[in-house]
């Protein structure tokens, strides 16, 4: 009624501001409140979930470090014919790249493009100093105080830290690492010499020998670690690189001048093996797909063609298939067992269903390891199941192998994942009024038809949720296959763990993780197309 008058003049609130503005203001306030409430969990999610996962995923394509190690070699390697052993120039490049100090570390800080003709590569830094002249010859930019100042700022800031003794120490260590992080591609080198000398330096005068000595010493350590890491990386391509680099590092110190081809092969005869040189080519690209190829049993060859791994190293495709089939079997097994239980739970009178519910949840409250060990007692060849079978006349000499293989993993995983299937199905069944079934039967449907046409379709959202939940959990499962998997029940998750913890091949582990993630997203997408994600009900 009042609105009819307001069509010409804007509506005003009590204090005279237009209603629209007031409304917007109050809306903004509540929006801010909402953001404020969401912010802490969002921050939590970003810091502890998205950032680490993103970091790990970038590792799966990152091969920049090896380019720091072998800049000269990679700049020249395309000139090699790949059929015979490379010529002197490439041997010289490898020698320079792997010698005690990596000159790229000195140069790189000023955006160097690798030019093999640059005389800087051939500059030899006297091992006992003086260092200034040699370093300036390699990278004249170090002459300017301005290039040292950002590093000094890090040190000065840390030296002004306050607090308990341990906090001061931490601040100093952190600064030493930060300086090295700025100078090198390493996150774990400590530039303690530079830290000390930068603090002594006034920040204006021309950098003197002390600073250059510190720079040399710290970069020497960094170069050593870089070789350590690079050798690990190179060993993925060709087993043997690890000890080759270690040995070369020691022997190269004695090599004063060329011809380098002879000297290198004398230092280690593997430098005369063309396979090692071919392996170098495959690492040239700083963005690599090699980890993804490896996790599918493939690799690059020297001609940049994708080829299969040697036969005895092919293991991942088999593991992917096994993981997929096992997850599928576990999911189907869980579904078959969970459906009747969930139905019973939903239809029994409360006092019975409560007891049943506790039985379902009890394993949830029991330690995973306890449950696995209990299964070992049940399933091993001298275990309860086999003993019972034998007692009923099963031949003693052909006891079933139910543990330490695929079968064992399936059985134990079905039991462990069962609640994930029961609970969503139960929560959906609970909401289906029993009168529907009665109505269907009243109208003449036999019980089986009533079940198929009336009851089951209504439980599908719960079934979908349970299936997705169980399948996704199963596909990345780790601890059960590790303990009971034995010969053929270990899954891709166990390989991820192996590469994260034991071989430290984080690139490969990340690539496998990424493939798993994509696989799950694809399944999710298919589910959405077929069943519709809105239909999923988790409880």
């Amino acid at each position: 009624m009042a609105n009819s008058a307001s069509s010409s003049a804007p509506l005003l609130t009590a204090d005279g501001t237009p209603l629209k503005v007031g409304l917007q203001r109050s809306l903004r306030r509540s929006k801010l409140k909402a953001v404020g409430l969401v912010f802490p969990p969002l921050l939590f999610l970003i810091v502890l979930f998205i950032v680490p996962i993103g970091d790990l995923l970038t590792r799966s394509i990152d091969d920049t470090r090896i380019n720091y190690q072998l800049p000269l070699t990679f700049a020249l390697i395309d000139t090699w014919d790949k059929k015979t052993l490379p010529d002197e120039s490439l041997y010289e490049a490898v020698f320079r790249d792997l010698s005690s100090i990596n000159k790229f570390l000195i140069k790189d800080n000023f955006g160097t493009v690798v030019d093999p003709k640059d005389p800087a590569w051939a500059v030899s830094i006297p091992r006992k100093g003086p260092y200034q002249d040699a370093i300036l010859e390699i990278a004249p930019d170090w002459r300017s105080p301005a290039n040292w100042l950002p590093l000094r700022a890090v040190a000065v800031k840390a030296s002004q830290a306050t607090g308990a003794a341990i906090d001061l120490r931490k601040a100093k260590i952190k600064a030493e690492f930060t300086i090295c992080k700025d100078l090198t591609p390493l996150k774990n080198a400590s530039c303690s010499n530079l830290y000390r000398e930068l603090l002594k330096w006034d920040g204006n005068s021309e950098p003197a020998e002390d600073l250059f000595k510190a720079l040399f010493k710290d970069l020497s350590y960094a170069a050593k670690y870089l070789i350590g890491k690079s050798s690990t990386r190179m060993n993925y391509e060709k087993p043997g690189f690890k000890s080759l680099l270690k040995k070369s590092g020691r022997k190269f110190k004695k090599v004063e001048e060329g011809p380098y081809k002879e000297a290198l092969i004398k230092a280690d005869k593997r430098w005369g093996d063309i396979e090692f040189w071919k392996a170098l080519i495959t690492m040239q690209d700083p963005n690599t797909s090699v980890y993804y190829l490896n996790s599918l049993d493939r690799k690059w060859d020297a001609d940049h063609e994708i080829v299969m791994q040697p036969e005895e190293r092919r293991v991942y495709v088999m593991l992917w298939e096994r993981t997929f089939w096992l997850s599928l079997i576990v999911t189907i097994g869980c579904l078959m067992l969970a459906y009747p239980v969930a139905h019973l739970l939903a239809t029994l009178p409360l006092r019975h269903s409560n007891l049943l519910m506790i039985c379902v949840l009890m394993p949830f409250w029991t330690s995973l390891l306890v449950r696995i060990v209990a299964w070992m007692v049940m399933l091993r060849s001298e275990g309860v199941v086999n003993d019972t079978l034998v007692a009923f006349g099963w031949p003693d000499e052909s006891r079933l192998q139910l543990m330490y293989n695929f079968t064992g993993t399936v059985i134990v995983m079905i039991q462990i994942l069962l609640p994930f299937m029961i609970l969503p199905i139960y929560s959906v069944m609970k909401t289906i009024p029993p009168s529907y079934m009665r109505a269907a039967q009243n109208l003449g449907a036999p019980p089986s038809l009533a079940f198929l046409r009336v009851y089951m379709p209504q439980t599908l959202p719960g079934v979908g949720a349970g299936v997705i939940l169980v399948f996704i959990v199963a596909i990345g499962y780790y601890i059960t296959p590790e303990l009971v998997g034995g010969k053929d029940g270990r899954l891709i998750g166990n390989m991820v763990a192996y590469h994260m913890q034991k071989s430290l091949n984080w690139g490969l582990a990340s690539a496998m993780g990424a493939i798993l993630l994509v696989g799950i997203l694809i399944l999710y997408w298919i589910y959405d197309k077929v069943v519709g994600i809105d239909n999923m009900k988790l409880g």
Partner: protein
Amino acid sequence: MRQTLMKTTLASAVIGAALAVPAQADVTVASWGGAYTMSQQKAYADTYGPGGINFVNYNGGLGEVRAQVESGNVTWDIIDVLPHEARVGCDEGLFEELPRDVFTPAADGTSMDDDIMVEVPNDCVVPQIFWSYVPFWQEGAFDGNAAGNPSTIADFFDVAKFPGKRGLHTWGNATIEMALMADGVAPEDVYDTLNTPEGVDRAFAKLDTIKDHVVFWSAGAEPLELVKSGEVSMSLAYNGRIGAAVLSEGAPFVTNWDGQVLEEEWLAMIKGTPNADEALKFLIHASAPEQQAGQAKWITYAPMRKSGIEIIAANEPWFNTGVDILPLMPNASEALSQKHLFADPSWWSDNGDSISERFTAWMGQ
């Protein structure tokens, strides 16, 4: 509102961090847990004057260490590592390099590094123990067997003469070396043989002969259970697990030292720890001959230092329950008089990944 929330979040984060960091400079040692950590606690921490040694458990590998060092948030100070990790950690700069002259020499003046029974791989590590992969069986398992009881590594790979299943671990270390020794390769030639593709094939061919009789285990307690229950008639296991079962539960296990593969175990200090001084003091204490020997009072892993094993030999019975420990020690002269091999970590550094892939493929075939 947003600012208050942020302040609260920050404040609680700060409080959380403050609570997580111990007040004084305690030294945190990451080790394997269980009876092993207990033996370190008794032999090293309890005998250490200043005290303040905390143990945490970890599952091996350098993943956690790398994460700590690279993020600049180092919460462990010392770590107990396997031979491969001892080398990788030092090469890649995850461990501090330690001065060598500060460590306690043996009673006869031999420096610590010369007192160790294997070559010291680098300046980052100090000696801990030797442990070994070794075959064992249960008394009575071969009663009535025509060939009697097994005694050599060849017997382990002979299911015709010594019937029953075999327990193997799910990775290749020691197994392929043992396969070659069982196939007649002398211990000193094992790694030369493995350096050729034919040598590796030969090892796997030997493994093929028992493939259908193998039960694979992955946790150190499993082989004891497998042998005890009769699931397998013989298994490989860590010697310390067998020793613990024999000494504490009186389990009737028999160890066949022939063909054992000895592995090293080192302590190292993590790069960038703010407690470096305290940690070094503790390392000096823990690596002294008396403490090295002392650990064997509690567990049947053996000191790496010759002087340590000499202290034990001179003072038997050494174990805390008053029984002789040397018969259960992998590097006592009795065990070393039989065919044995010190695992070569540098060979494994080169070939570990390819062997691991091949072994996994072999298991699943």
